């Protein structure tokens, strides 16, 4: 019986240790929560993938993020989207309005917005341009890009922890979020779409402290 008790205790401890590791000390229960925590602890370098888009002159993503210094709030979209991207679009419109208000008030925050398409095969620069116009995007503040190469696009999604699932009705479901990048092209924080004010304040703070 003693042996059983000792073994049971050991097994329970192993279970506790596994759960502790899995949930980062019982802080997160989902992979998305873990991703956000891990990014906050260890920023993720944006991979060197080639990008293009309307008015995008930078050859690759890190160069695009480093343009003008400052910080970038990015999201992933596809232009055929009828669901969550629409709410992301309006979130970005509100962010753009806040940044424009900053500039009008005479203290422009060096923060840019970037929408990256994960449907590179369909979202050619011309499609992105039409989409940007539909959202009344200000080209100086809010840029649109895609990764033309399918393998590089996959690598980018994997590196940044973006998971795209076809929903069987011709659309995609994805873990939509606001990704904040610093001027060195590192993803430093991931915010929920409902946390746009937090994301904006964090990006402003990053841009102010940028070298």
């Amino acid at each position: 019986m003693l042996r059983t008790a000792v073994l049971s205790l050991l097994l329970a401890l192993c279970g506790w240790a596994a759960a502790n590791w899995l949930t980062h000390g019982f802080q997160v229960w989902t992979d998305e929560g873990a991703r956000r925590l891990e990014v906050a602890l260890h920023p993720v370098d944006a991979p060197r993938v080639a990008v293009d888009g309307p008015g995008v002159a930078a050859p690759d993503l890190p160069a695009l993020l480093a343009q003008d210094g400052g910080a970038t709030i990015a999201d992933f979209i596809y232009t055929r989207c009828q669901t969550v991207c629409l709410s992301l679009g309006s979130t970005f419109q509100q962010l753009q309005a806040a940044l424009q208000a900053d500039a009008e008030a005479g203290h422009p925050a060096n923060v840019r917005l970037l929408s990256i398409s994960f449907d590179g095969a369909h979202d050619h620069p011309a499609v992105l341009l039409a989409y940007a116009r539909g959202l009344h995007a200000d080209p100086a503040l809010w840029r649109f890009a895609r990764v033309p190469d399918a393998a590089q696009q996959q690598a980018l999604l994997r590196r940044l922890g973006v998971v795209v699932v076809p929903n069987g009705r011709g659309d995609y479901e994805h873990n939509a979020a606001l990704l904040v990048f610093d001027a060195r092209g590192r993803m430093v924080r991931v915010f929920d779409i409902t946390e746009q004010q937090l994301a904006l304040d964090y990006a402003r703070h990053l841009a102010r402290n940028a070298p």
Partner: protein
Amino acid sequence: MTPWPRCTPRTQAALGLALCALLAWPALRQALEASMWRHMVLQFPLLMGVGALLAAALPPRAHTVVSRWNAHGIAGLVLVAGVLAVLMVPRVLDLALREPAIEISKCAALLGAGAALRLSWRAAGLVVQGFFLGNVLPMTAVVGQLYIDTPLRLCNAYLLDDQARLGQWLVGLAALLALGWLARVGWWTVRREGDAIAVKNA
């Protein structure tokens, strides 16, 4: 708990190996893991079934050693409850799809849990069985209800309606298993009372 009492241990182990190979076959694995409810409600119990079948191949000497460390099946059932509790963390499903090491650990844990369940169930007796089920089944039902109710996708790789369906399965399975066990206990009690009366009348 023996699935087919007339099957020799060797047949059972062979069956377990065959099922194991089938489940490891990439096409079937992908088909099972493509949906959240199939991942948890089909693949998990099937892997536990493989573990239970393979446990038949243990030589009698191993049984003696195991039972020395597993009085009343307690250690085994602690293992099963622990494995099931950890595997109900939604992050496991996403990680298992992404990280081969986690996928292998998950399968190994389920095989082990299946074997432990088989080696412990009879020895446990009604009290320990009831305690075990009284912990595991409510946990399953609560997790299932959470999956039904939450408006958030808990796994990046799965859709919301898939998650709700998994929740319904978990609640339903927990209720069914509880009823099944109670029915068995009832039947067993009635039979024992019948035997006692027969002995008295004889």
